[in-house]
């Protein structure tokens, strides 16, 4: 029976310098799949190459040994990157059978990700699967395994809180702003200073619906440059108070050693904006905004420590949730494996049932012939008797064939009832 196999490396086993040597560009995936498919040991294959992992998911051809497949794929990975085996040795891991299935399920559910619960990996897996399916590289076994993996990922996301809570500073900024404003549609973002983080946070806010970005900086040139980067409008530094009155979300990250926004200024601003709430994010060190500004009604002030504390809390929450996610993965793996086992014994089960039924039918015919034609319905009764004897006798062996050790039992059954000999007749 074909076996599922995983071979590859990830952020857990290899540093970036090694991973990038093994990575496949988007264009290289299809040719690689063709080459993999041409290997005699490989029945089905799929290639997943992201910045955090490079993995080959494969199924053996027929009942070929998994070890041969592993050696072949390892050889292929090395050869396709014109590298020495020693470069990757110690970084590559492999899983066979149950461990491989579990690994695929864990990766899809983002339990093996750098940031547990991050959603990108599922999309990447789906597109890798799509490419492999289109190239005809995946068949019924790997296909079913991947489809199930996507189902498991969905279950994990809906039944656990693994993906809840932003896991980096700029997404936390967005989530906090949403706690104040609801959706960010039509909101104005003001970026003060030209730090890299403010750049990222501003883009995040726009992705979530913010209408426009205003940028200001002590140096007008740098303001212009940042405005171009984030598709915003540069405004003069002297207008700071007016800009604050117009903005809903403010991200400040100047290199100033003194606070640039004080409580008195903020009070004036709140009056000017008719007490509409304003969300201030101070990601500068030393801080740009006096902490006392947070005391003003309608002002919500978070500094870099607050944001990072939330990130840490959220990540801890995800780690906690991953325990219940692992339970789901365990259960789903068991279920998949039992389906897989049952696939292997299907011909035996079919053969056994046919064998019994043929014998029973023949005996019924003989009996009915000796009894002669009868009109009292006993013919039907005899047939039913034969059918139910067959069904009752077969029940226990059928159940056994669907359970553990199915392969050994199937072999025994085939021998005991001469199922293969019957086929030759």
């Amino acid at each position, binding site marked *: 029976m074909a076996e599922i196999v995983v071979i590859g490396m990830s952020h857990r086993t290899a540093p970036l310098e090694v991973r990038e040597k093994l990575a496949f560009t988007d264009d290289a995936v299809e040719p690689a799949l063709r080459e993999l498919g041409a290997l005699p040991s490989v029945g089905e294959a799929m290639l997943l190459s992201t910045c955090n992992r490079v993995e080959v998911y494969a199924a053996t051809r027929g009942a070929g040994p998994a070890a041969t497949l592993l050696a072949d794929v390892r050889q292929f990975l090395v050869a396709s990157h014109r590298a020495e085996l020693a470069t990757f040795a110690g970084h590559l891991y492999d899983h066979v059978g149950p461990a491989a299935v579990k690994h695929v399920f864990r990766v899809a559910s983002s339990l093996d990700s750098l940031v547990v619960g991050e959603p990108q990996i599922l999309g990447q897996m789906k597109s890798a699967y799509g490419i492999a399916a289109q190239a005809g590289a995946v068949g019924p076994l790997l296909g079913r395994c991947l489809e199930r993996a996507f189902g498991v990922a969905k279950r994990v996301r809906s039944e656990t809180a693994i993906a809840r809570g932003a896991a980096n500073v700029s997404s936390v900024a967005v989530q906090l702003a949403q706690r*104040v404003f*609801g959706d960010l549609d039509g909101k104005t973002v003001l970026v003060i200073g030209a730090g890299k983080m403010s750049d990222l946070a501003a883009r995040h806010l726009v992705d979530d619906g913010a209408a426009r970005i205003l940028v200001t900086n002590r140096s007008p040139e740098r303001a212009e440059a940042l405005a171009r980067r984030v598709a915003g409008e540069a405004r003069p530094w002297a207008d700071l108070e007016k800009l604050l009155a117009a903005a809903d979300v403010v991200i400040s990250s100047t290199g100033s050693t003194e606070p640039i926004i004080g409580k008195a200024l903020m009070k004036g601003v709140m009056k000017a904006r008719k007490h509409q*709430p304003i969300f201030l994010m101070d990601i500068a060190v030393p801080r740009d905004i006096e902490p006392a500004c947070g005391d003003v009604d309608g002002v919500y002030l978070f500094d870099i420590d607050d944001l990072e504390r939330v990130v840490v809390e959220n990540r801890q929450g995800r780690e906690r949730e991953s325990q219940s996610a692992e339970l789901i993965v365990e259960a789903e793996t068991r279920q998949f494996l039992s389906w897989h086992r049952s696939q292997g014994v299907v011909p035996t089960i079919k053969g056994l049932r046919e064998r019994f039924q043929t014998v029973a039918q023949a005996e019924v015919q003989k009996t009915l012939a000796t009894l002669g034609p009868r009109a009292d319905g006993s013919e039907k009764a005899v047939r039913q008797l034969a059918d139910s004897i067959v069904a009752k006798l077969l029940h226990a062996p059928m159940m056994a064939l669907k359970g553990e050790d199915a392969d050994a039992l199937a072999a025994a059954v085939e021998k005991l009832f001469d199922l293969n000999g019957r086929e030759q007749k």
Partner: protein
Amino acid sequence: MTPLFWAAALLYAGAAALYFGFLVGLPDRLAIWARGAVALGFVVNLLEIGARGVAGLHPVSSARETVGFLAWVAVGVFLFMERKRHLPAVGAVVAPGSLILLLAARLSPAGDPSNLALGVVGRVHILLAAFGISVFAVAAASAILYLLEERQLKRRRLTNVVKRGAALETLDGVAHRCVQVGFPIFSAALIAGVVWSAQIASSLRPEHVIAAVAWAAFAVVLVARMTAGWRGRRAAAITVFGFAATLVVLAFYLVRAVS
């Protein structure tokens, strides 16, 4: 007590528990179940009120009937406000609130109905007041949640209530909208009340003064928001105060009906 009453009370209690569970961080689907329980409770409560009406105990026949009716209208207002927004956190206040009102209405001892001489104006007064207070109830529920969340956000604490509750602006908006709608109804109720008092030549009682204070509080919320841009915490606090005052008035009526 009829089975319908117990069914409605149980549904409201269940919804309250589910909403509460959702607020403290249990799975999202609890909010959906809670909403179902509230909606079902609303229907059962209506049937219950209908059955009482058939038996002669219609909503304006006594103070306790009015209070029970008010619980039902408040749930209706909440469901109406919730159809476009996601307000499970408000439900966590409305559901137990309505449950308490319903229990207070049905479990308080019945007074002597014969001492109630209502007439048309009296009935109009009671009906309008019930509607107005119900709308204020949802405003107050939003405002309470606003105050709770605002405090935690100000302290930079991202508790489950902040994460699960609605956004501050949404809560502020719901509270404001409800005060806007409730205020004219409550004003009309007050006018009808004054006319009714004059008809039955009633003297000035404490509950009349408290009702006037409640009315003034809501008037302040509306006017100050328009002129001085009052919103957020101050508006929420006054809204809660105004609603509390209307509850005191109701309590007066309930106690008076019994004694």
